[in-house]
C-alpha cells in the first residue's frame, strides 16, 4: 500500500518537474513556432538570480518573483535583438538560439566559475507513505500546478490572452484586425522566458545552480514540447503526464538515465505514429 503512495508521489513529482521546465518553451513554440534552444539557459539564469537574491537576504518567494521578472525582461530583449529577425527561418532560429545558449553558458562560467552553487531552504521533511520526502518537493508540485492554472487563466480571461489565442489561430486575420503581431510575439516570448526563470528559481534548492544545468533540462523540455504538439497547455499536460509517468517509474526501478532513455524511445515511437504530436490534429483548444 505504501509503495503505491510512494509510486504515485514519484510520478506526480516527475510530471511536475516536466511541466515546470517545459511550459515556457511550449508557450513560445505553440505561439510562434520558435524552437528556442536557449530555453535551458533561461532556466539556468533564473536559478542564478534566485541564488544571488537569496544570498542578498531576500526571502525565497521574493527570489522567485525576481527571477521571473528579470528573466522575462531578458527574454523580451532577446526577442527584439535576435529572434525578431529570423521569423520564418526555423532552422536559423534554431542555430541562433543555440549560439545564444552557448554564449550564456560561457558568460556565466566566466563570471561565476564552473562549480555549482546552492540555496538552503527551511523546508523540513515529512513522511509520506513510509518514506521521508522533503516538503519542498510538494511546494514545487504546487507551483507547477499554479503555473498551469495561471497560464490558462491568462489565456482564457484576459484581453491579452484573447489576442494571443487569435494570433495563434490565424496571424494574418489577427493583424488585419489590428493586432500588433510584433508586440504579441514580444510579450509571448517574454512570458515564456519568465516561466523558465521561475522554473529555474524553484528548482535551485533541489538541483543547485551550475552553468551547464540548462543542458540537462533542454533535452526533456524539447521532447515534451514536440511530442505535445502545437497546443501549449493541453500538449504539455498530455506529454508531461505520459513521460512523467514513464520517467518516474523507470527511474525508480532502474536509474534516472534509464528513465531518460525510455522517454526518448517512447517519444520517437509516438512521433512515428503521430508526427504532429499529441495535440497535432486538434484544431481548437489551448
Amino acid at each position, binding site marked *: 500500500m505504501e509503495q503505491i503512495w510512494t509510486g504515485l508521489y514519484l510520478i506526480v513529482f516527475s510530471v511536475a518537474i516536466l511541466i515546470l521546465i517545459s511550459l515556457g518553451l511550449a508557450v513560445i513554440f505553440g505561439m510562434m513556432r520558435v524552437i528556442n534552444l536557449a530555453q535551458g539557459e533561461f532556466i539556468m539564469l533564473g536559478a542564478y538570480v534566485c541564488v544571488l537574491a537569496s544570498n542578498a537576504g531576500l526571502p525565497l518567494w521574493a527570489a522567485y518573483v525576481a527571477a521571473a521578472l528579470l528573466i522575462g525582461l531578458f527574454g523580451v530583449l532577446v526577442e527584439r535583438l535576435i529572434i525578431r529577425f529570423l521569423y520564418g527561418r526555423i532552422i536559423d532560429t534554431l542555430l541562433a538560439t543555440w549560439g545564444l545558449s552557448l554564449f550564456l553558458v*560561457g558568460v556565466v562560467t566566466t563570471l561565476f566559475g564552473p562549480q555549482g552553487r546552492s540555496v538552503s531552504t527551511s523546508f523540513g521533511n515529512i513522511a509520506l507513505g513510509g518514506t521521508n520526502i522533503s516538503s519542498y518537493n510538494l511546494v514545487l508540485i504546487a507551483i507547477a500546478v499554479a503555473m498551469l492554472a495561471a497560464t490558462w487563466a491568462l489565456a482564457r480571461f484576459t484581453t491579452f490572452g484573447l489576442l494571443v489565442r487569435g494570433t495563434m489561430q490565424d496571424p494574418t486575420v489577427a493583424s488585419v484586425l489590428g493586432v500588433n503581431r510584433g508586440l504579441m510575439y514580444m510579450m509571448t516570448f517574454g512570458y515564456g522566458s519568465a516561466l523558465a526563470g521561475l522554473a529555474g528559481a524553484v528548482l535551485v534548492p533541489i538541483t543547485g545552480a551550475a552553468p551547464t544545468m540548462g543542458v540537462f533540462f533542454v533535452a526533456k523540455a524539447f521532447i515534451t514540447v514536440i511530442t505535445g504538439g502545437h497546443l501549449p497547455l493541453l500538449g504539455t499536460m498530455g506529454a508531461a503526464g505520459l513521460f512523467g509517468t514513464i520517467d518516474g517509474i523507470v527511474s525508480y526501478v532502474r536509474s534516472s538515465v534509464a528513465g531518460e532513455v525510455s522517454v526518448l524511445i517512447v517519444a520517437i*515511437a509516438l*512521433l*512515428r505514429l503521430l*508526427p504532429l504530436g499529441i495535440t497535432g490534429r486538434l484544431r481548437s483548444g489551448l
Partner: protein
Amino acid sequence: MTVNQEFASDAAIPPRWWWWLFVAALAVTLMVMPSYVDMALQLDLSIIFILALLALSMSFLWGYAGVLSFGQTAFFGLGGYSYAVLSLNAGVTHWPFVAGILLPMLFALVLGYFMIYGRISDIYLSVITLVVTLILEKTIRSTSGPEYVIGSVRLNGQNGIPGVPSLQLPWDSAAQLSIDGVFYLSAALMLLVYVGLRLLLLAPFGRVLVGIRENERRMELLGYDSRKFKLAAFVLAAGIAALAGVLYAVWGNFVAPEMFNLNQAAQVVIWVIVGGRSTLIGPIVGTGLVQYFGNWLGTQGIGQVTLVLGLVLMLFVLVFREGLLPTIGRFLGLLGRRFRAARPA
C-alpha cells in the same frame, strides 16, 4: 562558372580541370609534409583532418540532402567507442576498424527509419538528433561503475577508455601505425571522402538527393521515394562521422564521453556554417580556422571558448548567412564583374 558554384553542392557538372589540379596539388603537399614538418604539427594537422571528416559528414547531409542533424557527434562517439571496445577485447584492430564504422551506421539506420519514414518535420528531426546526442553522452558518463563492462573492457564513464590500440599494419601485425602513418591515413581518407562526395554529385543518387532537397514533394510526385534517399544519405553521413570517430580513437589512443558532447556538436555546426554549408571545401577550411582559433582561445579558459563559439554562431546566422567562403567568392565575383565592366567594350 564561378568559384562558388564549383564547390557548391548543387552543381551536377563535372569538376573542371583546375579543380583536379587543386586536388592533386593538395595530395602531393600532404604526402610530402611529414618530411618537413615536426611531430607536434603533424598531430595537430591530423586531428584537423579527422574533424574535417566529421564536418564533411554534416555538410553532406545538410548541403546535399537538406537534413540538419545534430547527431553526427553521436555517430562520431559511437564509432570511437565501438572501435575501442572491440579492439581491446579482440586484441586485433582490422575488423574492429570496420565494425567501428558499420555499427553506428546500423544505429543510424534504425533511428533514421523511425524519423524519416515517420515523416516527421525537418525541425523535429533536428531536435531529436540533438536530444539523442545529449542522452547518449549522459548515458556514457553514467557508466563509471565496474558493472559497466563489455567483454573485458570497462566503459569507465566520465574518464573514458584509455590505451586504445593504434592500428596494426596489415602486412605486419606486430607493428603499429606511427604518427606519420596516422597523418597519411587521416589526410588520405579526408581527401578521398572529399573527392568522393564531390563526384557523388554527378551520380544519379547525388542528383536525386539534391532534387529532394530543393523540392521534396515535387520529387515524390515524379515517382521518387524520398524517404529511401534521405535515409540512405543519413546512414552514409553517419558512416563518415563514424569513420572520423574511429580515426580519432586511433589518433589519440583514447576515447571519452566528450566525443558525444554538445559543445563538440556545436563546433561541427560552426565549422560548417563558417566555411559555408552549401560548399564542400568550406567545412574543411572552417574546421581548420575554428580549431586554431579555439586552441588559441583554449589557453584562456573553457568559459571563453564557449562564449566566443556562441557569438560566432549567432553572428554567422544573423549576418554572414552563407558562410565565409561563399561570401568571399561572391565578393570576388562582384569585383570581377566590376573589373570587366570597366574595360572598354
